[in-house]
């Protein structure tokens, strides 16, 4: 920091401080207790409640709010004078007058900053004549109750929703005594349900309906863990009582998410108690799956594995990248050492292909070179392939926060949108799947300006291969105007440090390996100036990759199955029949296996076809470690126990190993083995090529990629998430609806590829005009019916029904 240090006086003591720094932070760093109600470190200073007043004694005297006062040379501050205390007490009294004080029955009692301060400061003797202004509770939302009679108008919720969440669903309207926090026209909340507002409200004015428990705050146990819904890895703060989750929030000091969560991490946990969960092993007898004991199930599996080994038909395991590092390593040992097989792989995951086939060949190792937190401090970020608000909510919040609070811009290039495009500078609404061309063009422009490292291996032929991507041709193939391209380029040229982010997720159009390779090449050629972040779909992709679970591609395994080369197929959290693209032929291949074992929490379509089904612990029911995209280890802590009779992956694998007489090391020793990053070869560029993609034809682009409330297989088991995203809704841009004469709620028929679906229209200004957002999975098989290959671009028509 170039800021100058100055001396000020605090309570009579000389203190060194940064000129222009925040006074509140300075006082707090001196261990002085300064009460605040409207201040939030994550937001721009507000200065609304005046609880943080301190007295200034150096001439320009008076009461000043510490939270919104910059430090100035020569200041003299007193924090505990009679006047300060009295002023705080008066401000509290003012707030109390218009607050429905009912601590004994309030949901936040014991966890309420207002209550705590009143307790500390007391109230003035004299009673002011004032009658509480009555306002009804807003109970129109299924998840958030808003109780304006308890609101102290601190504005934290409004500012969070705007500055960090970027939604702006609620606002402070009217003024004076009429002032209140509400939505436009007092409509029911129709927002992202991230919970930021609720978790930061200092009082009980915002209440989470599903977490109303009647269990006092002071007898709940607090435990921290990592949210395992997606690969962002937000830290959770769960309150537990009686072995159950009573409430979930996040601590404002948590990393990398600074106390923010998305709807899944906040509310999605009801899926743990879903009645559809498997609680007992199942075994096929006389053609039907029946419940059985663990020992019977394990013996049957071990027997099948040994039988295969003896008949020279090896066992194959396909795992989901949600496994913890320990469980992934154990699985590797079981298959290779216990069964002498090398048929080991992860399910189809765009992130895996991006890292293995896109990053590794260029940068030498299959990992990102920058972290989510480090993105905060680069000058410019280019996000490719998707709206992170839909696929990686934490990244979205980081981008909004950079942009809103520090004016640090980012660009987003994606075919489909989710609302973030409004903040992007610029937003490039490219034709589906043409991100690689955009990158090739950028690389060519930067190379021509001599900004790239020409000494890299393969540089010449790489640059030659880019020559064809002139601005004109790029504009034509990406559908982005030359002016927009230029705008992007100018931002890139200005930035001293750049971040390039490639997002992956199911049903995103285009080739993730090719796009990622193009991004990695550009990052390599930019040298220290740039970092690459590849975000996969599931929580521990990096760890599973580092644990060596990627010997075989899923296609290869299915092929071997179809050729009857595999004896026992062991599926951990993967569902080839139900959730892999149809063209892979999962269900046909499964039929060819001698014995199929499915280890899952739910009875998936593959499980229905299995010989043995083993119920397993998921998400926050597990202990272990994971690896974040940059290689850092993080600890998953079990927050609640899995249902009785349900084991964690590792426990099951260990039991199987015992049956095979295989000795497995303890978790701690396993850990040593992980070895971390291998190789680190020198960057190496390969000529650029792009696969032609047919996006011709007519009709709307079908957008079946993840939605915030609905990201494929797992979310459908959370009743809360299902309620937020009825699976019968097609979202469309208001202008498209207008052109088609449609209103909210009209029934429409979506037709394409000889198939059709009946859905209800929902106008959504976050949807990109020209595309229709259809849920990937519905009670039937949803948008996946229109899609046969990963990355395919599909067009459909819409008719009023």
């Amino acid at each position, binding site marked *: 920091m170039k800021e100058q240090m100055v001396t000020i006086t605090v309570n009579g003591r000389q203190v060194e401080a940064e000129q222009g720094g925040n006074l509140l932070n300075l006082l707090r760093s001196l261990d002085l207790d300064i009460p605040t109600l409207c201040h939030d470190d994550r937001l721009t200073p507000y200065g609304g409640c005046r609880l943080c007043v301190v007295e200034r004694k150096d001439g320009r005297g008076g009461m000043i709010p510490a939270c919104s006062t910059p430090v100035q040379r020569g200041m003299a501050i007193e924090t505990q004078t009679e006047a300060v205390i009295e002023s705080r007490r008066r401000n509290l009294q003012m707030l109390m007058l218009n607050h429905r004080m009912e601590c004994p029955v309030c949901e936040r009692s014991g966890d309420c900053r207002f209550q705590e301060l009143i307790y500390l400061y007391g109230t003035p003797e004299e009673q002011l004549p004032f009658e509480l202004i009555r306002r009804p509770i807003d109970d*129109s939302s*299924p998840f958030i109750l808003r109780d304006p009679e308890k609101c102290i108008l601190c504005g934290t919720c409004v500012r969070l929703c*705007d500055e960090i969440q970027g*939604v*702006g*669903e*609620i*606002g*402070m*309207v*009217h*003024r004076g005594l009429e002032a209140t926090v*509400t*939505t*436009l*026209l007092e*409509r*029911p909340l*129709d927002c992202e349900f991230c919970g930021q507002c609720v978790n930061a409200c200092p009082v009980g004015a915002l209440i989470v309906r599903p977490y109303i428990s009647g269990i006092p705050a002071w007898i709940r146990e607090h435990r921290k863990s990592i949210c395992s819904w997606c690969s962002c890895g937000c830290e959770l703060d769960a309150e537990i009582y009686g072995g159950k989750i009573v409430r979930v929030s996040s601590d404002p000091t948590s990393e990398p998410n600074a106390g923010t969560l998305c709807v899944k991490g906040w509310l999605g946990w009801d899926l743990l108690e879903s009645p559809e969960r498997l609680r007992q092993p199942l075994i096929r007898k006389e053609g039907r799956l029946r419940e059985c004991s663990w020992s019977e199930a394990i013996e049957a599996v071990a027997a099948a594995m040994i039988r295969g080994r003896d008949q020279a038909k090896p066992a194959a395991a396909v795992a989901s990248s949600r496994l913890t590092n320990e469980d992934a390593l154990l699985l590797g040992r079981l298959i290779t050492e216990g069964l002498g097989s090398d048929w080991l792989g992860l399910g189809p995951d765009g992130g895996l292909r991006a890292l293995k086939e896109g990053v590794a060949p260029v940068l030498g190792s299959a990992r990102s070179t920058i972290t989510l937190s480090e993105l905060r401090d680069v000058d410019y970020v280019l996000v490719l392939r998707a709206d992170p608000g839909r696929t990686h909510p934490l990244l979205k919040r980081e981008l909004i926060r950079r942009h809103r609070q520090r004016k640090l811009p980012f660009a987003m290039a994606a075919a489909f949108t989710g609302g973030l495009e*409004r*903040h992007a500078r610029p937003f490039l609404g490219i034709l589906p799947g043409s991100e690689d061309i955009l990158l090739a063009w950028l690389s060519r422009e930067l190379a021509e300006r001599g900004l790239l490292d020409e000494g890299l291996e393969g540089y010449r032929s790489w640059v030659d291969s880019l020559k064809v991507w002139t601005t004109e041709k790029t504009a034509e193939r990406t559908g982005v105007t030359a002016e927009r391209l230029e705008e992007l380029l100018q931002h890139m040229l200005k930035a001293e440090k750049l971040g390039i982010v490639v997002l992956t997720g199911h049903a995103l159009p285009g080739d993730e390996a090719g796009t990622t390779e193009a991004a990695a090449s550009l990052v390599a050629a930019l040298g220290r100036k740039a970092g690459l972040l590849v975000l996969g779909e599931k929580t521990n992709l990096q760890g599973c990759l580092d644990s060596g679970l990627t010997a075989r591609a899923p296609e290869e395994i299915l092929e071997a199955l179809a050729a009857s080369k595999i004896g026992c197929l062991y599926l951990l959290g993967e569902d080839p029949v139900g959730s892999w693209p149809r063209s892979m032929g999962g269900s046909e291949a499964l039929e060819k296996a001698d014995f199929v074992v499915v280890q899952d929490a739910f009875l998936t379509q593959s499980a229905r076809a299995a010989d043995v089904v083993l119920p397993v612990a998921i998400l926050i029911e597990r202990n272990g470690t994971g690896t974040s995209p940059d290689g850092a280890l993080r600890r998953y802590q079990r927050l609640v126990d899995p249902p009785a009779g349900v084991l964690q992956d590792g426990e099951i694998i260990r039991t199987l190993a015992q049956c095979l007489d295989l000795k497995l090391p303890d978790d701690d020793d396993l850990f040593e083995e992980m070895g971390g990053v291998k190789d680190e070869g020198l960057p190496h560029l390969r000529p650029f090529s792009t696969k032609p993609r047919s996006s011709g034809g007519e009709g709307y682009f079908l957008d079946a990629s993840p939605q915030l409330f609905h990201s494929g297989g797992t979310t459908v088991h959370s009743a809360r998430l299902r*309620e*937020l995203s*009825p*699976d*019968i*809704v097609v979202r469309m841009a*208001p202008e498209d*609806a*207008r052109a088609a004469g449609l*209103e*909210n*709620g009209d*029934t429409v*028929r979506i037709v394409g590829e000889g198939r*059709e*679906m*009946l*859905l*209800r229209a*929902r*106008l959504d*200004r976050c949807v990109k005009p020209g595309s229709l957002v259809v849920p990937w999975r519905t*009670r*039937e098989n949803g948008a996946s019916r229109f899609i046969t290959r990963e990355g395919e671009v599909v067009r459909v028509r819409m008719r009023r029904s």
Partner: protein
Amino acid sequence: MEGGESMLEENYEIFYGAQEKSTRDEVDPEAWRIVDEYVAEHPGGQEQLIPLLHRVQGKIGYLPFPIQEYVAEKLGMSPVEVYSVVSFYHFFTTTPRGRYQLKVCMGTACFVNNAQTICDILGDLVGLEVGGVTDDRLFSLEQVRCIGACGLAPAMMVNDEVHGHLTPKELRKLIRKLKSGARRQEEGGPE
């Protein structure tokens, strides 16, 4: 096809039932154009909010919610942010006023010059009580404080235009003129 209407109904109502249909309402088509024009002429996003709202209200008399949402979209703000500004300032209103807002000055100078009578006559002419809007939304009538034209008392404003030294005869002429102007405009001619 699958599911059937009834499932579509039920499932949709669970969450969206309470939400109203999207509206572009019966908003004066003029309003959308004003916004488009203004935004095209004045780049710069959010700083343009207040002048733009003034312009719209000046022309159509009030700020309908669909227009507030449209303004938000155009300036890259959230609708409720726009509404919080609208609700903060007393001079913005969200209830309709006439295309011609008749604002009779009730300041001291006008008051002693028979402003009340002027107001009554005007009310009779357009068939309105103070605070009302005609069914065709052509006129609305309100009383305001001194408009700074005391030398012309009794005075009034029609939208932004000041009319002074009012007499019953002038008022009749004025209203006739406004009515026929509106008629001509409807037929496509100039105002």
